[in-house]
């Protein structure tokens, strides 16, 4: 349970477990509490960060306590919904290097790591620009790169595909599919969820209302319409292959 400082309660009891290496999509309408939930996963919100709320989070056997915060944050890579929340350094290169440098990487090793992450998102030509002078989609890509460069064990992405052009979206899907990490991805793009994640959690009103195979959830018309989810125009979840194939 968690309430924002202005007194609005955003989470009303949420309980779930994600296995190592699993890929889970977190679905739900606007204002469901998805972002609020994932900000708890590395202790940005919640009692461990000095906020209100109650509950426990455990990552890979380590409880989320104040003394383990640093360790947990190194393990859990979080891509924020708003790239402006993520980028704060004077240049793209510095920004991507910030995390790995904190992990102790230096010199050529650091440069390689940064370059690799920028190539992954196709932003290597923009390394010397200021992040706040990029287009929105470019900022989103750099935000993803900053987290990829840290090689986290758990990757949490808050609507990573929004504002990306279709090719970048597919490229990101390819990257994510190729990584050996535990993945939790918030998205409003249901086909994208189906493509990448075998399992889905469905949130509404600060609660988890469904938990199951993505394909099954998407095919359940009643559940979908009760939670403001709709498949796009001319899309049949049963007719296309998912990640299990």
């Amino acid at each position, binding site marked *: 349970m968690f309430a924002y400082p202005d007194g609005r309660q955003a989470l009303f009891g949420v309980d779930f477990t994600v296995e190592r290496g699993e890929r889970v999509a977190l679905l739900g309408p606007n204002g469901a509490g998805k972002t609020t939930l994932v900000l708890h996963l590395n202790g940005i919100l919640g009692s461990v960060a000095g906020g209100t709320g109650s509950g426990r989070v455990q990552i890979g056997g380590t409880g989320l306590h104040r003394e383990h915060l640093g360790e947990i944050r190194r393990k859990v890579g979080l891509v924020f919904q708003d790239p402006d929340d993520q980028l704060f350094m004077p240049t793209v290169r510095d920004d991507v290097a910030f995390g790995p440098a904190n992990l102790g990487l230096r010199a050529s090793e650091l440069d390689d790591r940064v370059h690799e992450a920028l190539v992954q998102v196709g932003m290597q030509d923009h390394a010397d620009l200021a992040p*706040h002078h990029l287009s929105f989609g470019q900022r989103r890509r750099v935000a993803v790169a900053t987290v990829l460069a840290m090689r986290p064990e758990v990757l949490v992405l808050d609507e990573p595909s929004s504002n990306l052009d279709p090719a970048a979206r597919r490229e990101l899907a390819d990257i994510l599919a190729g990584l050996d990490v535990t993945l939790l991805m918030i998205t409003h793009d249901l086909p994208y969820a189906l493509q990448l994640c075998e399992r889905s959690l469905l949130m509404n009103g600060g609660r988890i209302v469904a938990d199951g195979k993505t394909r099954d959830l998407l095919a359940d018309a009643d559940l979908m319409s009760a939670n403001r989810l709709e498949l796009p125009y001319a899309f049949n979840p049963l007719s296309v292959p998912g990640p299990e194939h």
Partner: protein
Amino acid sequence: MSGDGLLVAVESPVHRIPAQVKLVALFIFVLAVVSTPAAVFWAFGGYAVMLLAALVTAKLPAPVVSRRLAVETPFLVFALLLPFVATGPQVSVFGLQLSQSGVLGAWNVLAKGTLGVIAAILLSATTAPRELLAGLERLRLPATLVAILSFMVRYLSVVSDDLHRMRVARESRGYLGGRAGQLKAVAGGVGVLFVRSFERGERIHLAMQSRAYTGRMPQLSTHGASQSQWLVGLAIPLAAILIAIAARVVGL
């Protein structure tokens, strides 16, 4: 400072007085205090009692008030130094050589400063920034200043939010603080923060222009104060003026 600023959100008669009344009241009260001769001690006692009554009526918690009194500290130090550094006839107190005018001066600074600070705390703790702006607008503060002010109040939260976002972003990428190289990066962050906030301000201004803004905020939705509200609000400052005049005329 976020959203509601320093407002202590409780229901009280003082909270309900319109901001423009409180502004005028604060001003008159402070004027009365300042123009009171320092040595008329009873007058300051009177002011203090009235302020205390207002604080109680406003249901302000004592710890909040005393915490906010801390802005006075530098002058407290100055005031305590005065008796030692001021020239003029000396008196000896517990074997210390103190300047007479210094002692009185210290009292003067302390008493008037403290009363002024408490009165301002009373205003800020019972008035939301938004009402305050509306009040200033009603008192005919030039529109340009009101506009700068309203953006400033808003941007205080943007800048502090941005600071907070940067801190969160840093920490969630394993920053533990300390190391020299990284410290440099963080210092550079101040400049980035500025440009970022600056550009956000610029874009917001453009967004405003896109919505037919021509340099004047639409009148904030407040109503004029009624006569009885003026009367209630000005009761204390008017009493303060009486005290001030009495202090002058009656003397000691």
